[in-house]
């Protein structure tokens, strides 16, 4: 006999299902219930740094867009600080760092406006390149998928990033790099995710 450890087990995950919008984005489900839905304003009105738009589509194993995805984003501000009591540093008032978007029911396109995050100190004093953490749920996804969006124009920082360098297959690192372009004077980063198949996006067990 040994002593019991007495840890609890994490509640097992279940799919968010096709009607995730009712709970997390009821306006998209077709009704208005809350004073304010959460997650539409990531950076707030006082955010410093470069305003950017991030857009993409999520593709399944048949090559088709997934049209009932919900994505959540979690990012630091332009100085590399997360708005969280355990992360040292200041953030601008109103900077949430967290956002929630759904894909368009007809096209599967998603997008959000924010500011480009700064580099964040990683483990063992190694700086992480600017990135946005993404969490993806949908019907048919049994456990939410975690990935990171990095920025095409951060070539040097990306090359030194400790997380990108963990990915043994260099060609797979490219699946995490968002492509930069300009549209009507605005900076747009394109980040298409492939859940399954050729050039499958790298997902992390965090």
């Amino acid at each position, binding site marked *: 006999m040994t002593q019991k450890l007495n840890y609890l087990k994490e509640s097992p995950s279940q799919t968010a299902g096709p009607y995730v919008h009712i709970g997390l984005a009821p306006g998209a489900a077709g009704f208005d219930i809350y004073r304010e839905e959460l997650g539409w304003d990531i950076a707030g009105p006082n955010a410093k740094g470069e305003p950017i738009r991030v857009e993409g589509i999520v593709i399944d194993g048949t090559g088709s867009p997934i049209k009932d995805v919900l994505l959540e984003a*979690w990012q630091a501000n332009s100085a590399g600080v997360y708005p969280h009591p355990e992360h040292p540093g200041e953030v601008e008032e109103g900077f949430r760092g967290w956002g929630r978007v759904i894909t368009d029911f007809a096209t599967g396109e998603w997008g959000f406006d924010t500011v480009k995050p700064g580099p964040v100190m990683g483990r063992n004093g190694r700086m992480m390149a600017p990135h946005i953490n993404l969490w993806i749920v949908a019907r048919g996804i049994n456990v939410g998928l975690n990935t990171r969006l990095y920025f095409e124009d951060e070539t040097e920082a990306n090359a030194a990033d400790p*997380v990108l360098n963990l990915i043994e297959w260099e060609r797979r690192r490219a699946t995490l790099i968002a492509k930069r372009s300009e549209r009507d004077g605005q900076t747009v980063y394109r980040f298409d995710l492939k859940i399954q198949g050729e050039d499958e996006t790298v997902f992390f067990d965090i």
Partner: protein
Amino acid sequence: MSTPAEFYQRDRLWHPPAYAKDYKTSVTRSPQYALISLQNSASEITGPTFGHRDIDPIDNDLISNYAAPGQSPIGERIIVHGRVLDENARPVPNTLVEVWQANAGGRYRHKKDTYLAPIDPNFGGCGRTLTDENGYYYFRTVKPGAYPWRNWVNDWRPAHIHVSVFGSGFAQRLITQMYFEGDPLIETCPIVNTIPDKAAIGQLVAALDRNATIPLDTIAYKFDIVLRGRRSTLFENRLEGN
């Protein structure tokens, strides 16, 4: 401020696998490559925070949050209550819990749901609340109905409430479903059975809780939710380095 430390690794054998062939939609929505394991950094141990200014007190009462004045939805009146804990059995305070569900007839208020059971004009089907300092939360609602879905030709979902929880770090983010004690549809549901372990499934089945029932008014179910636990900061287990 304590020194930040990682969360315990997620037990992937306790959770459903990404690919579960009997839940057909997962077949083309499951990554084929292995997940890349990542030791937590600041990006994973931090996460969004929410406060009482973000939500309203009525948001946790699905019986009244969409009903016309003086009206209430059809169905069995229930309370769902419990605690959000971590794997160390510590309460997770001030964390956002969001729920959504079908009405008593098994119909969702969603423009994509075309099931023939009627929409209830007095039922929205979603709610949200913050846990208190002891990790405690509660909702009032009506018991959702079972409904058919296209998987095998004659599959029926057991009555369930979808639950979304944040915790303190983004690595704790979780969506799951709550089932009801005694529901015979649990055993044959392909979504429930994506979870390989019977004991893990049992963790999602809320028990009838007579002690929390309001006599002559509302019946109660207790549903505790467990999020990933966090390591103690021992010796060199430091995220930031020196």
